[in-house]
C-alpha cells in the first residue's frame, strides 16, 4: 500500500515534467545566488582571517608605542638585554611601479613559533633571507601582480595573505626608508622568571592583547553585509517561484490526496511522503544551485577583489577555493527554503477533511481574509520603516529601514493593484473591458507572489542604479575638481624634482607641489598633504563645509582641512582641535569630499608640512598650463630630463584610469541586479504557467460566447504586460526610497561619505522597457499555448471532464 501510494504521488511529476523543471530551476537559482554570495564572502573572510593570523597576531601579545609611532631599534635591544623574549616587526606600504603592497619585515631567528604561519627561510634560503640582497616572500597571486617590476629576489609560498610581502627586517628598513626603526615587538608566550617590567626599560610602550579579528574585516563588514543582503533578496525572489510551483502541484493532487486517504493511507504517512518528496527535490536542486553558485562566484570574485581594493585598499584572494562549509550551507538553505515555501500547503493538507471537495480550489477564493491581514502587516512594516528612519542610527538600522520598507511595499502591492483594477473596472464601459479588469483583479492572488518578486527586483534596480548613477555623476564632478592640474609629474630624485620645478617656472602657469606623509590621527592611519596657496585650490577644491575664509586660515597655518571620511569617523566638528603625528595640534577649519579614499586625509599649508616633517620626500608636483599646451609641454619635459613615460601623467589619462576603477567597482552590483531581475522573470513565467493551467474554466465560457482563442490570448498577454506596467509604476517610488536609504544612511555608515542623490528618468524609462519586456517574454509561451489550444481542450470544461 505504502509503496503504491508513494508511486501514485510521484507519478504527478512524470505527467507534469514542466512543473518539476520550474520547481528545480526556481530552487536552484535561489540557492545559486545565495551560495554564490556566500562563497564570495567566505573567500574574503578567509583572506581577512589569514591576515589576522599573520605573524600570530591572533595569539601573541605585542608591544607597541602608546602614540602608535615607530620605535627605535634600540628599544628591542634594551628589552632583549633585560631578558624579554621579543621579536621585532616593521611594517609599511611599499610601491613597486604602480603596485602598492603591504610589507612585513621580520627577524626569522627570534620569531615565536606561533608567528611562523608559513615555512620561511630554511637552509640556503635563510642565508639569502637575511643577506643584504634580501629575499621577499609572497603568495602566487601577489607575485603575479609584481610581474615585470624591479624587485629583490622573490620566493613564492602559500599561506601569505594576498597583497602582503614578507622580508627580513633589515631589508624592510631599507625598502621602507625607515633605518633602525621597528613598528612593534612580538612577545613570546613563555618568558623568563623575574623580568623587569617592560615600561621601566621603555616608558612609552604599551602591551596590546592578541586580536581575533583583523582591521580588514571590521572595515569591510558593511560591504559584505551589502552583498549578503543582495543574496537574501535574490533567494527570497527565487522562493516565490518555488512557492508557485509547489502550490500548483498540491492543488492538482488534492483529489489524489483525498482518494489515498479514503483508501486507508493515514494522514501522518501522507504528510511524511510529501515532506520526503520535497526534501528529495530540495537536495537535488540544492546541489545544482551550489554548483551554479560556485560558477557565479568564480566569475564575480575578481570584480569583488577589485572593489575591495578600490574602496578599502584591502587585498583579497581572487581565486575561489571549494569549501565544504558552503556546500553544506547551500544544501541547508535549499532545504530550509523548500520547507518555508511549502509550509502553507503541507499545513492545508494536514488540516484537510477526508471528504473535502476534490475540485481544485480557485486560488482567488479565500483571498479576502488573507488580503486584510496582508494590508495590516504592510501598513505596520511601512510605519516601522518610517519610525526607524526618523529615530535610529547606524548601519544595521539602515538595513532594517531598507528591509521593512521593501517588505512592506511588496505586501502592499496586491492591495494597491486591486484598488487600481477596481477603479478601472468601474470606469470601463465595454463588456470585454469590464470582464478584463474584473478577471485581472480575481487573478491577482494567483499572480501576486510573482508580482511582488518583480516589484522587489525592479525597485532594487531603480534604487541601485540611482545610487550608482548618483555616485558616478558626483565622482566625475569630484575628479574635475580634484584633478585640476593638467599634468602630474614625479621626479626620480629630489634634485631632479627641484631642477624640473625651476625649469617649469617660466614655461607653465603654476607648479603645485604634491607632498605628503603617512601619519595618524586618533590612532587611525591618515595621509597628510601640504598645499601651496593658489587659486587652483580656492576655485576647485570640493569643500563641503568650512569656516569663513578657510583658505586664508590654512595659508596662515592656523588650521587644516580634513576629508569627509575622517570627519565622520571621528565625529569632528568645525573648530575642533586635532592631535597630529609628531605631537602637535591644529584646528579643523574645513571638510572636503574625498570619494573612494579608504583612509582619512589632512591638508595643511605646504610650509607647515615641510616645517613639521623635515624628511618629507619632495618628488611629486602638478603643472597648471592651458590644456591645449599640456601634451607639448609633457614631451619637452620628458626630452629635457630624459624622464620615463610613467613619470608624467596627463590629467585626462588619470581621469580615465580613475573612472575605469570606478566602473569595475560596481560590476558586481550590476551583475546581481541583472540576475535578480532574471529570477523575477522566471518567477513571473512560473506563475503564468501555473495560472494558464487553472484559467481554462474561466476562459472557455467567454470563448463560447463569441471571442476567438487568439483574442483571448492577446487579452491574456496584455493582462501580464499591464500588471507589470502597474508594478513598475509602483516600484519607482519604492526604488527611489531605496536609493535615498542607500545614499543617505547605508553609504555613510559603510564608506564614510554621503552622496547627493541625482535622479535619471531616462534610466527609469529603460528599466520600464526592460520590465515590460520581462513580462512579455514570461507571458509569451503560455499565451501562445492558449492561442493554439484545441477546441476539444476548451470543450472539456463544459463536459465536466476536468
Amino acid at each position, binding site marked *: 500500500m505504502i509503496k503504491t501510494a508513494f508511486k501514485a504521488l510521484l507519478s504527478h511529476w512524470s505527467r507534469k515534467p514542466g512543473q518539476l523543471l520550474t520547481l528545480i530551476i526556481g530552487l536552484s537559482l535561489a540557492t545559486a545566488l545565495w551560495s554564490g554570495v556566500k562563497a564570495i564572502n567566505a573567500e574574503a573572510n578567509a583572506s581577512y582571517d589569514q591576515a589576522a593570523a599573520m605573524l600570530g597576531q591572533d595569539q601573541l601579545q605585542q608591544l607597541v608605542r602608546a602614540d602608535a609611532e615607530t620605535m627605535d631599534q634600540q628599544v628591542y635591544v634594551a628589552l632583549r638585554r633585560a631578558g624579554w623574549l621579543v621579536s621585532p616587526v616593521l611594517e609599511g606600504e611599499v610601491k613597486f611601479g604602480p603596485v602598492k603592497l603591504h610589507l612585513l619585515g621580520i627577524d626569522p631567528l627570534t620569531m615565536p613559533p606561533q608567528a611562523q604561519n608559513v615555512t620561511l627561510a630554511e637552509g640556503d634560503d635563510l642565508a639569502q633571507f637575511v643577506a643584504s640582497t634580501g629575499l621577499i616572500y609572497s603568495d602566487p597571486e601577489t607575485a603575479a601582480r609584481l610581474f615585470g617590476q624591479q624587485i629583490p629576489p622573490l620566493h613564492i609560498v602559500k599561506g601569505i595573505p594576498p597583497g602582503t610581502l614578507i622580508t627580513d627586517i633589515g631589508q624592510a628598513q631599507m625598502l621602507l626608508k625607515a633605518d633602525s626603526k621597528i613598528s612593534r615587538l612580538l612577545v613570546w608566550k613563555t618568558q623568563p622568571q623575574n623580568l623587569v617590567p617592560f615600561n621601566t626599560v621603555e616608558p612609552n610602550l604599551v602591551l596590546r592583547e592578541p586580536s581575533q579579528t583583523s582591521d580588514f574585516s571590521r572595515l569591510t563588514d558593511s560591504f559584505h553585509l551589502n552583498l549578503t543582503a543582495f543574496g537574501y533578496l535574490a533567494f527570497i525572489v527565487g522562493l516565490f517561484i518555488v512557492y508557485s510551483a509547489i502550490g500548483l502541484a498540491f492543488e492538482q493532487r488534492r483529489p489524489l490526496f483525498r482518494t489515498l486517504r479514503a483508501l486507508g493511507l493515514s494522514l501522518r504517512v501522507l504528510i511524511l511522503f510529501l515532506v520526503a518528496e520535497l526534501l528529495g527535490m530540495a537536495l537535488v536542486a540544492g546541489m545544482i544551485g551550489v554548483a551554479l553558485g560556485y560558477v557565479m562566484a568564480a566569475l564575480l570574485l575578481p570584480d569583488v577583489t577589485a572593489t575591495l581594493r578600490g574602496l578599502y585598499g584591502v587585498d583579497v584572494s581572487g581565486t575561489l577555493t571549494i569549501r565544504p562549509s558552503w556546500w553544506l550551507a547551500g544544501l541547508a538553505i535549499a532545504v530550509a527554503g523548500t520547507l518555508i515555501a511549502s509550509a502553507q500547503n503541507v499545513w492545508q493538507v494536514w488540516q484537510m477533511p477526508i471528504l473535502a471537495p476534490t475540485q481544485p480550489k*480557485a486560488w*482567488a*477564493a479565500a483571498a479576502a481574509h488573507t488580503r486584510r491581514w496582508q494590508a495590516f502587516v504592510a501598513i505596520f512594516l511601512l510605519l516601522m520603516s518610517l519610525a526607524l528612519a526618523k529615530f535610529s542610527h547606524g548601519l544595521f538600522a539602515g538595513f532594517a529601514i531598507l528591509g521593512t520598507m521593501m517588505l512592506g511595499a511588496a505586501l502592499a502591492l496586491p492591495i494597491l493593484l486591486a484598488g487600481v483594477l477596481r477603479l478601472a473596472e468601474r470606469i470601463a464601459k*465595454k*463588456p*470585454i473591458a*469590464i*470582464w478584463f479588469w*474584473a*478577471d485581472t*483583479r*480575481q487573478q491577482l492572488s494567483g499572480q501576486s507572489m510573482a508580482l511582488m518578486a518583480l516589484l522587489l527586483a525592479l525597485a532594487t534596480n531603480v534604487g541601485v542604479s540611482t545610487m550608482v548613477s548618483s555616485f558616478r555623476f558626483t565622482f566625475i564632478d569630484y575628479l574635475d575638481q580634484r584633478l585640476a592640474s593638467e599634468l602630474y609629474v614625479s621626479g626620480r630624485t629630489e634634485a631632479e624634482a627641484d631642477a624640473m620645478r625651476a625649469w617649469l617656472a617660466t614655461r607653465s602657469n603654476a607648479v603645485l607641489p604634491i607632498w605628503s606623509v603617512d601619519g595618524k590621527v586618533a590612532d587611525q592611519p591618515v595621509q597628510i598633504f601640504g598645499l601651496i596657496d593658489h587659486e587652483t585650490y580656492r576655485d576647485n577644491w570640493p569643500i563641503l563645509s568650512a569656516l569663513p575664509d578657510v583658505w586664508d586660515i590654512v595659508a596662515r597655518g592656523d588650521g587644516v582641512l580634513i576629508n569627509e571620511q575622517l570627519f565622520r569617523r571621528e565625529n569632528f566638528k568645525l573648530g575642533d582641535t586635532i592631535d597630529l603625528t609628531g605631537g602637535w595640534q591644529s584646528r579643523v577649519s574645513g571638510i572636503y569630499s574625498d570619494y573612494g579614499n579608504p583612509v582619512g586625509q589632512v591638508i595643511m599649508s605646504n610650509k607647515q608640512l615641510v616645517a613639521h616633517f623635515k624628511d618629507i620626500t619632495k618628488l611629486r608636483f602638478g603643472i597648471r598650463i592651458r590644456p591645449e599646451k599640456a601634451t607639448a609641454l609633457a614631451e619637452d619635459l620628458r626630452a629635457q630630463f630624459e624622464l620615463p613615460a610613467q613619470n608624467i601623467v596627463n590629467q585626462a589619462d588619470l581621469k580615465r584610469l580613475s573612472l575605469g576603477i570606478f566602473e569595475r567597482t560596481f560590476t558586481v552590483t550590476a551583475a546581481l541586479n541583472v540576475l535578480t531581475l532574471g529570477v523575477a522573470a522566471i518567477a513571473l513565467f512560473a506563475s503564468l504557467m501555473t495560472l494558464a493551467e487553472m484559467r481554462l*474554466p*474561466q476562459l*472557455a*465560457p*467567454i*470563448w*463560447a*460566447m*463569441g*471571442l*476567438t*482563442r*487568439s*483574442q483571448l490570448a492577446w487579452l491574456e498577454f496584455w493582462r501580464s504586460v499591464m500588471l507589470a506596467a502597474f508594478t513598475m509604476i509602483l516600484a519607482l517610488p519604492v526604488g527611489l526610497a531605496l536609493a535615498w536609504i542607500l545614499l543617505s544612511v547605508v553609504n555613510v555608515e559603510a564608506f564614510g561619505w554621503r552622496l547627493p542623490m541625482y535622479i535619471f528618468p531616462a534610466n527609469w524609462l529603460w528599466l520600464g522597457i526592460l520590465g515590460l519586456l520581462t513580462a512579455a517574454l514570461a507571458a509569451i509561451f503560455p499565451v501562445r499555448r492558449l492561442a493554439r489550444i484545441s*477546441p*476539444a481542450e*476548451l*470543450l472539456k*470544461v*463544459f*463536459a*465536466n471532464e476536468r
Partner: protein
Amino acid sequence: MLLSLRNIEKSYSSVEGPLEVLRGVSFDLDAGNSLALTGESGCGKSTLLHLVAGLDQPDSGHITLAGQNLTSLNDAARASLRRGTVGLMFQQFNLIPSLTVAANLAFHAQLSECHDVAWTTTIITKLGLLDLLARYPEQLSGGQQQRVAIGRTLAAKPLLVLADEPTGNLDEATGDAVLDLMLSMVKDAGSALIMATHSPRLAARLDRHLKLHAGQTSA
C-alpha cells in the same frame, strides 16, 4: 429554416484508435421551434451541440445556421456568428466568477451589441433575480446559478438556444421549476431551442424529440 445539418460525421482520436462519435447525422430546425436530444452518456449529444454552436468543426458534412455555412467559416467568423446568433447553457452553469450577477446577465447581450434594458429587466423579474444582482456566482445556490445562466443566455435574444443538460446538476423539483422558466422565457424571446438531456420526461415537453444512438439519429 434556421438550422440544417447534413451527414455530419465526427470522430476523436483515442488510445484505441479513432473514436467515431457522430456518423451521418442530419436534421433541420425551424425558427422558434424546440428539439430534445436524448441518448446514453457518450452518445454524442454534447458533441452535436458544440458543432452546431461552431465551437468545433465536423470531419465531414454541412451545418447551415441562419443562412451561413458554418463549415466554411473561419474561427473569427464562427465566433462572430456565435456572438450574435447562439446562446449556450451548460450543466455546470459556467458563469463568469469575477462578475456580479448583474454583469453576468448583461455580458453576452452587450457582447453581441443587442443589450435591451427593458428586456433584461423583464428577465430579471421573471427569473426572480432582483435581490441577487450584486452577488457573485460563488455566493449563489445551484438553482440560482442556473437561473442566472438562463437569463444571461436569453438577454442577448439569440435565434438559437443550445442547452446541454441544463438541469442535470439540480434536484428534480428545482430542475422542473428551472425548466418551466426556461421554456417560457425561450418562447418569450422567440428563440429556437435544442436541449440535450437524459430524461425522456423532460424531452417530452419539447416540440420534437431526436434520439442519438451509436452516433446516429432516430426520431
